[in-house]
Each structure stands twice: as structure tokens, then as C-alpha cells.
């Protein structure tokens, strides 16, 4: 089976005041039809790696890689036209806050219908029906009401469902979710993740979940990639998280306050400069 996405030796640099600032430094990843968690602190390069998979980086960024393939397309040589087809049809991106990623002056349903029409041939009526169907797939009880609602009339969880429905419209193979639940309450967060989980397994898609929340990602994903300073620190199966060996992964886990056991002090992570060198 060919992998859904393949990254080998990815470097991304941004121009800074004193020359190129590296954001990603030699990341290699192979992704199948699975749920992969990309975890790290802010500045670890996790989001940049996710965006590189869609080539959605600012034009000033410098991208170098030995291999950067998604769904059989070589991103390093793809034309802008090919990229546009790939982005909508084969890869979907879900961002943190639906408030900013939905068009505020267009009803939610119209936006889904438009996304559907951009990749299917069909009439307006068919698009509307497809959008309603997608809305019920993301477990919205009253699709007709949400279809006509404007984004500001929807709650955070509802907005994120609309966003997911919109990304599912073209029937992508790969979904990239960048902190999809960070702006949501714990109860809603659980619902959205359950929903994503079901959709991904039902449709046999691949999912990259980018998050700073290690416990959350490990509950939800099959495999975890821990990043720090633009490098991969450790790659492991989610079920083996308690057996993580890398001191950074262990530090991330240990520093969280816990509900089940009181602790006087939280262990603070000591960062080893050697992590940034490494093999």
C-alpha cells in the first residue's frame, strides 16, 4: 500500500532580521490511512509541518525536502493549478476557530454547498441536498436550520461541525486538523473528537491531528509524533505513551497537574540543548 503522505528531510525556514530562521529542521514522516497526532509546544514546528503538507505557507518561506508527497502528488514540483485541485479535493484543513475560517456574510449551508459544487458537477439543488446530508453526517440534529444560519449565529462546537462538513464535501483522502478543539469547552471537545474519529474510520481517511495537548492526542490517535524545536523527538504508538523514553515526552507528561493525585510541586522540564542537535 502506498502511503497517503510521505515527508522526508523537510526543512522550512522563514526570513528573520538576522538571516533565515529555521522552523522545521529535517522532519521525516510517513502517513497511512490512520490517525496521526503531531504534538509539541508553540514554536515546535508542528503547525508549519502540517501546513507544508498543503503547501499553505507564506511565499517568503523557504521549503526544502528530499520527498514531499501527498496522495501521489509531488508537492515540490506541483503547479499552482495542481495544488489547488489537490487542496480542495484530496486534503481538507480544519483550523482552531471556525469564527475566523467561515465567511461571516454567507449562510453556513451555502458555504458547504459551494465547497461541494467546486469539486462535483451538479445543480444548485443537488448541492443543497448534499450539504444537508453532510450536516446530518456531522450529527447536527436540525440541518435545515443550521443550513440557513450565519456563522455568528452558531456556537463554537456547531461552527466547528460546519467546518468539518465543509471539508468533507469534496470527499478528501486526508484531513489535517490544526488544534480543532482548543477553542472549545471540554464537553464539546469530546463530542467533536468522537465525531472526527467516526468520520475518519467510516470513510477510511487519513487524519493528522496537530495539538499541544499530549493526553488528548494520545486518547484519540493511533500514532504520535512528538516535536520540539522543529525536530521530531520521538515517534510512538499512542498505546505505548506511558512507556515513552524521550525525556522531552516524559517531561511533557509529568508537568501536568492531575486530578487523581495531589502533588506539592509540578516537575519542571529541563530542556537539553542536545535535543536540538541530535542525529
Amino acid at each position: 500500500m502506498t502511503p497517503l503522505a510521505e515527508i522526508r528531510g523537510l526543512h522550512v525556514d522563514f526570513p528573520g532580521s538576522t538571516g533565515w530562521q529555521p522552523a522545521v529542521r529535517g522532519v521525516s514522516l510517513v502517513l497511512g490511512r490512520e490517525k496521526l497526532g503531531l504534538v509539541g509546544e508553540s514554536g515546535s514546528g508542528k503547525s508549519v509541518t502540517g501546513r507544508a503538507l498543503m503547501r499553505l505557507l507564506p511565499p517568503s518561506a523557504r521549503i526544502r525536502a528530499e520527498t514531499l508527497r501527498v496522495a501521489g502528488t509531488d508537492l515540490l514540483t506541483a503547479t499552482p493549478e495542481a495544488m489547488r485541485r489537490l487542496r480542495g479535493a484530496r486534503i481538507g484543513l480544519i483550523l482552531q476557530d471556525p469564527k475566523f475560517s467561515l465567511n461571516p456574510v454567507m449562510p453556513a449551508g451555502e458555504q458547504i454547498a459551494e465547497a461541494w459544487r467546486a469539486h462535483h458537477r451538479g445543480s444548485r439543488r443537488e448541492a443543497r441536498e448534499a450539504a444537508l446530508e453532510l450536516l446530518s453526517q456531522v450529527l447536527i440534529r436540525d440541518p435545515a436550520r443550521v443550513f440557513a444560519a450565519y456563522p455568528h449565529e452558531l456556537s463554537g462546537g456547531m461552527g466547528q461541525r460546519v467546518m468539518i462538513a465543509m471539508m468533507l464535501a469534496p470527499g478528501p483522502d486526508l484531513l489535517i486538523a490544526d488544534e480543532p478543539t482548543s477553542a472549545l469547552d471540554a464537553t464539546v471537545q469530546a463530542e467533536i473528537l468522537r465525531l472526527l474519529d467516526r468520520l475518519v474510520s467510516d470513510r477510511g481517511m487519513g487524519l493528522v491531528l496537530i495539538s499541544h495537548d499530549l493526553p488528548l492526542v494520545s486518547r484519540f490517535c493511533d500514532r504520535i509524533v512528538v516535536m520540539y524545536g522543529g525536530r521530531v523527538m520521538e515517534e510512538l504508538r499512542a498505546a505505548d505513551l506511558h512507556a515513552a523514553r524521550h525525556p522531552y515526552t516524559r517531561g511533557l507528561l509529568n508537568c501536568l497537574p492531575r486530578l487523581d493525585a495531589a502533588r506539592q510541586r509540578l516537575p519542571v522540564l529541563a530542556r537539553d540543548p542536545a535535543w536540538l542537535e541530535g542525529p
Partner: protein
Amino acid sequence: MIEVRDLNVRFGKVHAVRGASFTVAEGESFGLVGESGSGKSTVLRALAGLVTGWTGSMSMAGCALGRRRDAAFHRAVQMVFQDPYGSLHPRQTVDRILSEPLIVHRIPDADQRIARALEEVALPRAVRFRFPHQLSGGQRQRVAVARALIAGPSVLLLDEPTSALDATVQAEVLNLLADLRAARRLTCILVSHNLAVVAHLCTRLAVMQQGEIVETLDEAALRGGRATHPHTKELIALSRDLDGTG
């Protein structure tokens, strides 16, 4: 020390806080937990005097709090905000930010006090004349803590002080807050959506839902899962769910 009785806050038509009552003893750390829109931050802001249009009664150290607060109140009560990027003036250096409370309260020896305040929150001296945008999120939150403590308050109001920070930085700031609270015998009210953070810092807490306090319980009951209200139970279950993986 702090008593809130039947507090109601309305913003236009929105009834943000509905009849909240609780007391906090001197030196105690009290938590307010809830989801967004539950009114927990509004309670804190009403207590700080940042929200007008409330009814009910609030008192501190036996004195009833009115609509306008006097200088003594501002010296005794300070607050740390959620977003360390929004709570520091973008055009002022750390030195300027920290000297503001000293100027307002006419406290002498500003120079030494600022140096000591930075030391207390473990910030290097070089930070003193930097602008907020030149600092990391954790450093900014330390500056916010230093500003809150520099005039020597007895009550510290914490509004989600770590939710905008990375987990490792959160641990550092939580340790710092725990140390300072013990060293200065502060009375704290902590607002958070994260049960584990509240359990770590607080001995007692109230759970809020849609503007109402639905349950008040202590740390042991929280950790033991002995909650009675279904919303509390749900929050505990969700928090446990993530805990279990470590």
C-alpha cells in the same frame, strides 16, 4: 475575608451571573470552575470592580464593596489576566508597567522594589527594560504576576492564568503561584476551566453552569469524585479520561 451574596450581573438582556453566593476565608484558595459562558470570569471581574451593573452584596474583610472602589481596595486586591499578550501595555517597558502601581499608591524606593519584584518571579534583570513583545508567553505572565504583587496585596484574583500557556510553562507558573501564595499568605480566587489546575492550587471550589453556582465542594471531594451535580460529574469524568493516559 471575602463574602459574595446573591450576586447578579446583567449585560443588557444577558443575565450573565444568577444569584451567586460564596465565601472565601483568609488565606484560602478558592476555585471557580465552569465552561465558557458560565459566568465565572464575570464573577471575578465584578469582585474586582471592573464590571458595573451588578446587584447583590459583596464584602471584603468585613467592609461592603460599593460601585466605586477606593485606593485601599486597589492596594489590597489585584488580578492576573488570562491572556499575557493582552494584559501588558504594548508600548510600555516592563519597568514602566511595574512602576505604575508604585506611582499610583505613592510607594517609595521604586527602583529597588521593581528589582526585587522581578527577582521574586524569577525573571532575569535584563528583562526589566524590554517591551512585552520581546518576551515569551511565560515571561509575560510572570511580569503580570509581579505587577499584581508589587503593591503588596492580600487578595489575588486569577483569571485563567495559565490557559494560554504551554503545558511546561504552565507548570512553572503554577509552581510560582503556589510559592508566592504560601510566602505572602495570599487569599486567592482562581477561575479556570481546567479541573486539574484548580485542584492543584485550591482547597475549595464552586462549579458554575449558565451563570449559576451549581455545586460547591472541597479538593478531597473533587479528587475522590464525590460530586452530586450531574454537570460536575461530567466535568470530572472528562478530566479523568485525559488523566488516565499518563
